[in-house]
């Protein structure tokens, strides 16, 4: 112990020596270190390594805070009202609870259900169709979408730059916040996008009862939930695999095409083999994120399980469509497409799914609206 202290002291002495040599040469006192405060971001111990390259965008307190303001501020939209937080609300694990499809600017309706924003650092792609491959490139999409924010990215940057000018209606001085986060007041695409990524990377949900169970707390799940977990592993984890409860693949789960004949992943790849495939979503906080499926067609998890069971005797939802791209895991029973789930198994599965609810995450004030957002 003594030796250790000694070493540390030596280390300090050495570094201050180096410091004084450096400042001595210019005869000016070294300025007190300022600039953004680094955040030592570490992944939850039971999570895999993140996909997002944090070394290219190291998190800082000021960067994350700027990202949080940008996330909630309606300045991103044409009419100043629609922020990211409008359709991605914290209490619903950053989804638009109760909305099959979200209504964006001027109450225009989108074509797909808002996905949760959580654990974004592990996402291999974004959107139901995976059209965006990098978190940094995500924000321009909703900003420019005519039914979401209907604004140009260029104009958003200009509006942000103007928030320190006389006559601004903004309650936030963005050039000042950019200066705190990045050293100067300059507002560029890269800075804006990286600040937003910093905030979204910081939004980690890893404190559900299931997480405590994974980390060794046997009492975190009750016996019905444990039974549900074992059924989940047999019947659901083929797609909803791993700690994040998704393999991030694109699959056709047999939902009959909706009115607009949304072909999903094939819109991006232009490949017939990708028709009607959508991203397997993570099931974290799934009890909070209804309605379900890419178009929000099911309002409850019971309906979701009934759908997968595809039993025409027990459910009016039994309509798994036998299209050429239907996922092979839904064809295991030669007699009937879908996944056989008995009613007792359903009850256990539903109990297990509630163990994925992370209340610390949905109540974490670090992710909350700083008081500038609009939620409808």
């Amino acid at each position: 112990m003594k030796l250790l202290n000694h070493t540390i002291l030596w280390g300090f002495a050495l570094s201050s020596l180096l410091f004084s040599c450096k400042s001595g040469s210019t005869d000016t006192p070294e300025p007190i270190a300022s600039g953004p405060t680094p955040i030592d971001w570490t992944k939850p111990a039971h999570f895999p390594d993140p996909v997002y390259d944090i070394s290219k965008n190291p998190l800082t307190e000021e960067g994350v805070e700027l990202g949080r303001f940008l996330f909630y501020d309606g300045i991103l939209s044409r009419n100043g009202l629609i922020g990211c937080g409008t359709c991605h609300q914290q209490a619903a694990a950053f989804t638009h609870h109760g909305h099959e499809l979200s209504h964006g600017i001027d109450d225009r309706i989108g074509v797909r259900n808002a996905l949760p924003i959580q654990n974004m650092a592990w996402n291999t792609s974004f959107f139901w169709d995976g059209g965006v491959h990098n978190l940094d490139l995500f924000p321009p999409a909703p900003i420019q979408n005519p039914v979401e924010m209907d604004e140009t990215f260029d104009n958003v940057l200009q509006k942000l730059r103007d928030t320190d000018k006389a006559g601004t209606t903004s309650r936030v001085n963005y050039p000042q916040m950019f200066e705190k986060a990045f050293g100067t007041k300059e507002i560029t695409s890269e800075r804006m996008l990286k600040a937003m990524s910093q905030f979204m990377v910081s939004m980690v949900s890893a404190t559900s009862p299931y997480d405590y169970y994974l980390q060794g707390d046997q009492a975190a799940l009750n016996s019905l939930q444990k039974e549900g977990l074992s059924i989940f592993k047999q019947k659901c984890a083929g797609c909803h695999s791993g700690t994040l409860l998704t393999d991030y693949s694109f699959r056709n789960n047999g939902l009959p095409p909706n009115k607009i004949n949304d072909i999903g992943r094939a819109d991006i790849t232009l490949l017939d083999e990708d028709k009607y495939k959508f991203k397997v979503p993570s099931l974290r906080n799934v009890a909070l994120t209804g309605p379900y499926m890419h178009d929000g067609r099911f309002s409850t998890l019971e309906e979701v399980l009934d759908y997968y069971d595809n039993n025409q005797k027990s459910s009016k939802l039994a309509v798994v469509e036998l299209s050429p791209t239907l996922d092979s895991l839904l064809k295991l029973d030669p007699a009937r497409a879908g996944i056989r789930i008995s009613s007792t198994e359903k009850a256990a599965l539903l109990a297990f799914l509630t163990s994925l609810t992370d209340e610390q995450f949905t109540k974490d004030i670090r992710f909350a609206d700083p008081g500038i957002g609009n939620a409808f």
Partner: protein
Amino acid sequence: MAISLVSCNDDDNTMEPVGATHGELTLEYDNVVGNRDLALDTDTYTNAANEPFTVSTFNYYVSNIKFYKADGSSYVVPQDSSYFLIRESDPSSQEITFKNVPVGDYTAVEFMVGVDSLRSVSDVSKRIGVLDPAYSEVMYWAWNSGYIFMKLEGESDVIDTPNGKYNFHIGLFGGYETKTLNNLKTVKVDFGEHKASVTGELSPQIHLLTDVEKIFSGSTTVSLAATPVVMTSDYSKNIAANYTSMFSLDHIHAD
């Protein structure tokens, strides 16, 4: 012609260092439709399908530029300085001057129409200037991360939609996770009997023509009535294949 231009420049010779190793070279993209100059909105042209059309927007990226010498050796423009967006609406975008080009007689130019796949998936810090996703001319698909390599828009009486407009937004770099359509095209324009001689004194200008008419003709005759909107569809490959032949050399100014 070339010789007389050279002699005009003789006065400057004293200013040039003896035995200069590098000089300047300008590449000019002059957009035309057949034998007519391209005029936005005002003029009506006729395509290979015998359909009248106007042009309101004509933009395209050129990148990865390379100049060849007669002996087959080449000068590759440094990667980070090799992305340009040619816009009919902005004459200054149509002339690109390269500095620090090794002296020599250049006989061909090669470039990519579009933004190569590596840059298309690069970190946002590499997306500056004309590659900035906030770039006001919006040559970027936000929902399907990728650049629009060539954008041609306008109107035609044969289009049976309320606004009579056509939109060709051609992109797709081959996909990030899944291999998909790749519309990246590399074009080489040979100067034939001409050459661009870069010396300490001479900064030649290579004047290329970009013929919009060729977008509609070639391996596929593109009909505005049949396909007024072509964006991220399989059909886009036909337009990309057509436009590889839209570039030609008009002339080279020696000085």
